[in-house]
């Protein structure tokens, strides 16, 4: 049973091999077809195994393709056998490969030129299109062009609109109630014979008797915030100390009338800022400056000392 199968397989392979060789020879140029078929079938006999024979047949198919390519149809005369032992030239009537080589070379050259052209085009594209060349900004050339003269004001046409001359603004005269105040003003006057006149010594200019105003400068009063409350924590960690002098303007009730300013800094910006905060927070707790015992609006400076306890 197995031998039958082997035989049938062998027969199938054998027939396939012969069929392939026949097809390959048939595909070859007509003048070589019969010769090649007979030659290949004769050489096939030397193949020992069926697989080897099959490989040989497949190779013959490839060989016929190469031969067809090298020997175009109609250009190959029949190969005539040469007598054995004859010292003559090659088998007469075979196609001279000069033209074939030329065609083949031409085809190959065309392909080569095509590839070279594609590379050149790609290279040109890379250089011109894809490459980035920084553009140089060229400023426009300065040109002196005559400019039309601007019409003067008197030449301008009148502007349509309301006549401003007719407008009259009536402002009511304000009535201000000025409280009567007893203000002593030190005005130097001419020497008179009045009792309060002071006779100056000879040679010295005459001195008039002036009224001395007792002025008591203000300052932080009762309820003024503690400096420690405004000591910056960062300054405490860095052990920063200093005195910041702040000027404040205070009314009669001890309230700030203007924003306090730093007159002399401590050298540390944080402490100066803290001093200003302290001055603002103390509004309403300032002691007003008094003149002859009367509180007056005034501006004065005081120092804020930031000092850590040892």
């Amino acid at each position, binding site marked *: 049973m197995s031998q039958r199968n082997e035989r049938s397989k062998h027969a199938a392979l054998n027939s396939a091999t012969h069929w392939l060789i026949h097809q390959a020879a048939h595909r070859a140029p007509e003048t070589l077809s019969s*010769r090649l078929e007979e030659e290949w079938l004769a050489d096939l006999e030397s193949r020992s195994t069926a697989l080897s024979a099959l490989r040989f047949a497949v*190779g013959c198919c490839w*060989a016929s393709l190469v031969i067809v390519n090298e020997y175009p149809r109609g250009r190959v005369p029949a190969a005539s056998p040469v007598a054995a032992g004859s010292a003559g030239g*090659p088998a007469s009537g075979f196609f001279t490969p000069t033209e074939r080589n030329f065609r083949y070379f031409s085809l190959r050259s065309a392909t080569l030129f095509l590839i070279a052209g594609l590379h050149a085009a790609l290279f040109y594209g890379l250089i011109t299109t894809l490459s980035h060349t920084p553009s140089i900004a060229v400023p426009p050339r300065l040109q002196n062009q005559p400019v039309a003269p601007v019409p003067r004001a008197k030449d301008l046409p009148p502007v349509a609109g309301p006549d401003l001359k007719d407008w009259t603004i009536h402002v009511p005269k304000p009535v201000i109630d000025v409280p009567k105040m007893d203000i002593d003003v030190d005005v130097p006057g001419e020497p008179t014979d009045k009792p309060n006149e002071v006779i100056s010594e000879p040679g010295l200019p005459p001195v008039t008797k002036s009224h001395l105003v007792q002025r008591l400068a203000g300052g932080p009063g009762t309820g003024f915030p503690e400096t420690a409350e405004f000591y910056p924590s960062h300054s405490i960690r860095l052990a920063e100390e200093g005195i910041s002098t702040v000027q404040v303007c205070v009314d009669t009730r001890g309230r700030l009338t203007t924003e306090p300013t730093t007159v002399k800094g401590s050298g540390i910006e944080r402490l100066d800022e803290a001093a200003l905060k302290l001055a603002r927070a103390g509004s309403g707790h300032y002691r007003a400056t008094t003149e002859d015992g009367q509180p007056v609006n005034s501006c004065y400076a005081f120092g804020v000392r930031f000092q850590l306890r040892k």
Partner: protein
Amino acid sequence: MGKKETRVRMSLQTLRVLEAFLENPTEQLAGAEVHQRCGIASGTLYPILLRLESAGWFVSQWESIDPSSAGRPRRRLYRLTSTGLRHASEVFASFNRGVLA
């Protein structure tokens, strides 16, 4: 008829075929024997044989046997010509000079 083009494009397989024939230049070899000596596949071997024959390096003829009595088909035998022998010798001699002819 102009002069026949005798130049052949040399390849490693062509050189191996020529080498097989140069072992005994007068010997006639069939394609199957060249295959056994060189180990070149049939798809490459037969175009080379035809190419060298076209160039005048080889001549070929049918084996002079009676197929019926021999019990096998006649083979096509190839043999180096004098031209082929001279060219093949020059090719291999050029290897000694470091130049391929």
